[in-house]
């Protein structure tokens, strides 16, 4: 079989999927395919938007339309162009599940005591993590060297672990603008190293140990998440 033949075969396979129709909803609906193609084209052609401005506007709206007791946060993943205002949708022990406010989208971010512990429905999700040692130092505003593990699914559905050693250090005092007013916080840097990657996470922590703002490495595709507590 020549290359021409191989390529023709792939083209025919694609055609075979596209041209199918069926009443069986467990089989692939060709409409899904055209949607995928359309979305990827529109994403490519979309004009760049000022995400900060959008998030600020959405944050203001969310704060004005929700009860003062409802926790709200904002998140941005610059490397994949995701930005949203988040609301709490579930709690499981120390874990909090957040989803986009004003949307029924199931994409979710899971935090454990304020640090991102997992994602669901994003690209190359963070499946789980072991961050208690880092959290303990960060929330107590202490310094030290601790282990940190992030887990992902590879393309063959097998869990792969990225094991890091992190050096947690104190930075400068800062002020974080919350909806309830300015709040004093301390910078806590966590510099993590593995055999083939290194990154620095930054947490702004108040005196009670609450993480008010952070820049946290989530994974090789999602990159850094910028998350702020709004309320």
């Amino acid at each position, binding site marked *: *079989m*020549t*290359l021409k*033949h*191989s390529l023709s*075969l792939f083209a*025919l*396979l*694609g*055609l*075979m*999927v596209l*041209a*199918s*129709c*069926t*009443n*069986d*909803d*467990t*089989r*692939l609906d060709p409409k*899904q*395919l055209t949607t*995928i193609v359309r979305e990827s084209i529109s994403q490519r052609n979309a004009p760049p938007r000022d995400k900060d401005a959008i998030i600020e506007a959405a944050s203001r709206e969310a704060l004005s339309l929700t009860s003062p007791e409802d926790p709200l946060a904002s998140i941005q993943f610059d490397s994949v162009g995701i930005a949203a205002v988040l609301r709490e*949708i*579930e*709690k*499981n*022990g120390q*874990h909090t*599940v957040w989803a986009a406010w004003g949307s029924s989208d*199931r*994409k*979710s971010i*899971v935090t*454990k005591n304020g640090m991102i*512990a*997992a994602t*669901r*429905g*994003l*690209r*190359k*999700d963070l*499946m*789980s993590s*072991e961050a208690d040692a880092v959290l303990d130092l960060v929330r107590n505003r202490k310094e030290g060297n601790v282990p940190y593990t992030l*887990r992902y*699914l*590879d*393309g*063959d*559905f*097998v*869990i792969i672990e990225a094991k890091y050693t992190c050096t947690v250090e104190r930075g400068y005092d800062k002020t974080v603008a919350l909806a309830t007013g300015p709040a004093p916080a301390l910078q806590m840097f966590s510099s993590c190293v593995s055999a083939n990657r290194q990154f620095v996470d930054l947490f702004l922590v108040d005196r009670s140990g609450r993480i008010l703002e952070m820049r946290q490495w989530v994974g090789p595709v999602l990159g850094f998440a910028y998350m702020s507590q709004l309320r």
Partner: protein
Amino acid sequence: MIRRFGLILTLLAALMLPTFANERSLTTTVTNSFGVPSGLIDMPTAEMAPDGQLSINVSHFSGYTRNTATFQLTPWLSGSFRYIGIDDLTPLFDIYYDRSFDIRLRLMEETDYLPGVAIGLQDFLGTGVLSGEYIVATKQFGERLRATGGVGWGRLGSRNSFGSLGSRPGFSFEGVGTGGNFRFSEYFSGDMALFGGFSYDATDKISFSAEYSSDAYEFENQQGVFDADSPFNFAATYKANDNLIFRLFSVYGQEVGLTVNVTLNPRQPATETQGPAPLPVAVRDPARINDLGWSTNPIEQIALSSQLEKFIEQEGLTYVGADITDRTAHVRIENGIFQSEAQALGRTMRIMSRMLPPSVETFHVTVESNGLPLMTTTMSRTDLERLEYEKEDLALQAASFSDSIRFGDVPEPKADVYPNFTWSVSPTLRFSAFDPENPFRADLRIKARANYDFGQGWLLNGAVSVRVLGNLGEIDRPVNSQLPFVRTTIAAYNYRFGPTIDQLTLTKLARIAPDVYGRASIGYFELMYAGVSGEVLWKPVDSRLALGVELNYVQLREQDQRFGFASHTTPGGTIPHVNGHVSAYYELNNGYQANVHAGRYLAGDWGATFEFSREFNNGWQIGAFATFTDVSAEQFGEGSFDKGLFFRIPFSWIIGTETKRGYSNIIRPVQRDGGQRVIVPNRLYDIVSEPHRANVASSWGKFWK
């Protein structure tokens, strides 16, 4: 002979020195002009491709084209299938086409001080026109330079030989015979010669190679096709991206050629699967765990079932039924959408956690297929809540798996699940490969398929197709088989305009006993055969081993593939009606699967088929098979015995949307009549083993996805 083996053993012993610390795997995505992983040009190296890589290499210089598919079966073993065309090699054909297989094995990983070492057999199963064997060592210096040296036999021992191990006849068309067979007496025999070379990565995308070749192209030279004047070859390689590599090379001071190498790795999806995120597990309020008021309210029970159904169906799963009591809930589903059975289980249990009253502590989920309950998974709700964000395999340890029949009390299907009618209309492809007159022919057809699922394992499946366009009808090679014409007449079936009845079968699947499954089928099984078929399979849910037996009474169909039957008397003999096999299936670690089917084949020949494949959790499958029967190589004809490759490409891997559909096919170097089995739809092993424990466990991370 003893001397030869003595030398090989000495060489191997010398090379298998104690392994030093800091082992490195010499890998490359580049392939040489024979399509095997190598940074050199015509010569092999000890490099391997990344595990699981599949490459298709087309290499051409004047009058000489090689197409090679190579699969890195394990990190240390690769197999290749090659199809070459050489102009004017023999007066019988304008272009001489030839098929061959290679195998390469890494004996030793590279260390700080010692090179990586590999052994390989080129064209070990074919006519032998390219046959050669080698032991080769490669060492990396710094980040960019790799040096290779080796010793070769056969073709690779034909230039400046420094010695020989016994004698080895040179290639001749007279010596080929039926071809396609092992030539054990020739491997690593005859003249030996040294070869070597360098590859240098100038940048991440561009590399250069130079080599001294030990292949003198003796036979091509004799035939006046190609004169390998100089032993030196040079190449410049450009990696356009991770999956596409171009190479310009000069060989033997005679020709300039071009190689295009397309690679993919089943472990790296072309498009990452994007589906809706799962619902989070809902954690109960401990104060409400003993609230049982709901359990005596029938309206509440009905509402619960209907909520479960709604949310499970939203996930794309089929809700078959449920039994809910005050402390236990048992849901029965069919997974027609997720490649990973673990994901189907996880999605179902998350929904159960959200919908069911807090008093329900134990969750059972039974997965069925075609109406057959197969496996029941049990997990406590407390564990589900506790382990949602913990290390993934902790939940696997907390789950238990049972045969649904052994478990008992499986929920009955609700009233409107069966009968279930599904239909589809789609294009389909029939193709013929490796015909000497035209190596690839294909017909595009439109196929309408209808399935009527009566429930209780009763299935009626039908498919009708019509030819749209193609060139399969141009095949006019006379059949020269010495056996009953059981498959060599397939060309006469393939090209029919139609409408043809591609399949029309009534099947009954049954649970005979715990761990034991049965199937009875009657109808038009495939293009060529109709009949009656019975099968019994033993497959415990947590067993890697399965055993089966199948007995068939077959009737040859008319070539128009309507309802008529053809005579079993053929010029090669009479086709017996009865055939069948006993089978053993074994799931090795890491997705490797080994199967053996032994019994009587369509032509009445007795023997066994050996299959070895690698199955990925994401639905890819790549494997090879060989069938040895009591038919002699002469009787079998070209190829000597039946063998080939099979593969499956999941559509979800290509488009990133959850679907269990895929494209699968078998590639045989040559289609003959020996060692052929009838194709019976709904064979048990794939249906039964798919949701069983080994498959669920191997992709358990998806439970939480």
